């Protein structure tokens, strides 16, 4: 299992996730029914409705791909920590991951 910390309105919640289910962070957050995570396109980095901020992560977390950056570029506002949750795979590379939800 891996742990993912979720920050929402200043409150931190820790979720335990199996690392071998091929889940991505958008699917996890949607499953937990966070309303700001819509995941309209299903996880193809094509809609930017799972925009979040990565506050902390182990260096092994891969950076955003070109497609993800293209999609983030279409949003009215982004932050330097902005990512699309659907592009963060929850696998054994994930350690110390803390993400913050933003209004989408």
């Amino acid at each position, binding site marked *: 299992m891996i742990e993912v910390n979720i920050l929402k309105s200043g409150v931190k919640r820790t979720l335990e996730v199996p690392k071998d289910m091929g889940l991505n962070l958008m699917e996890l957050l949607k499953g937990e029914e966070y309303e700001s995570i819509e995941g309209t396109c299903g996880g193809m980095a094509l809609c930017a409705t799972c925009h979040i901020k990565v506050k902390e992560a182990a260096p092994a977390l891969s950076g955003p791909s070109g497609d993800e950056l*293209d999609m983030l570029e*279409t949003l009215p506002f982004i932050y330097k920590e902005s990512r699309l949750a659907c592009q963060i795979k929850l696998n054994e590379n994930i350690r110390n991951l803390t993400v913050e939800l933003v209004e989408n």
Partner: protein
Amino acid sequence: MSIKIKTDIAIIGAGPVGLFAIFEAGLLKMRCHLIDYLPQAGGQLSEIYPKKPIYDIPGYPTVMAQELVDNLVHQAEPFNPGYTFGERIETLEKRAEKDFHLVTNLGTEIEASAVVIAGGLGCFEPRKPEVEGLTRFENGKGVNYMILDPEQYRGKKTIIAGGGDSALDWAIYLSELCSELTLVHRSESFRGTPDSVEKVMALADSGKISLHLNTNLSTVHGNGKLNGVTLLNTRSNEEVLVDTDYLVPLFGLSPKLGPMEGWGLNITKNAIEVNTDDYSTNIPGVWAIGDINTYKNKLKLILCGFHEAALMSHSVYQYIHPGVKYTMKYTTVNGISSF
């Protein structure tokens, strides 16, 4: 002058499931009129991932999303559907059984015997930048979030804000029509299609586009109608006031349930509760099919929506023609011209 449309079934949403409902209703000799807030048919397939392959449509090992939409539109053609695009149903009034009155945000009225909501995830509404007072200039007062009729901008001063392909493509197109075209983008560079980026840069060099990079929309000005926008350069912190007739922020779309929340439907977690016997809602005469509905073991799949469209159509037929016995006819036996 507002437009009035009469139909058997008003279908809210022109995504794949709404489109297939035309066919299923058509086999029962019921005519449909579809209304969608997007400017074209296809819902999220056309709007978000037209060039992505879909693998779980029975009979198609793989099909491009836009190809599926085109085929569904083609398949529905024999049943003469009507379409209203770029408008959103604001009010749904049940005046009596089999007598529904729907009105769009632009005043188009639709009278229908039954209503089918095939709204997917809801209306794709434009993302709005956080600029104070922006909403004052919506609805014809200068701020538009999508371009429906480019001719509207001919000879006018226009500011486009955004950095995606849609912003780039419209900037290129409108630079020919507008008297002045300003493109505002919050970053240093564009990440759109290289060809489009190159064109925009060339148009900026030749003075056809006034390009403002590292720039945000700061303040909107006008008395009743938009006449100017203050832009803030985030590097130099300098502000500049640009006179304009139109401001078009193009920051993509995000789905919202929208006005249907107030129609008296039972809604759970942004989806409409239905009876799985026929996908009817708590309001007699109103059905909900596809991703917009919810029930035990619901799967949000296009193929499930197609099944729901078939059962819904037979239920609507019974509602419109109570007591009339219908003998199931198969298209393989009869073709579709006899329906």
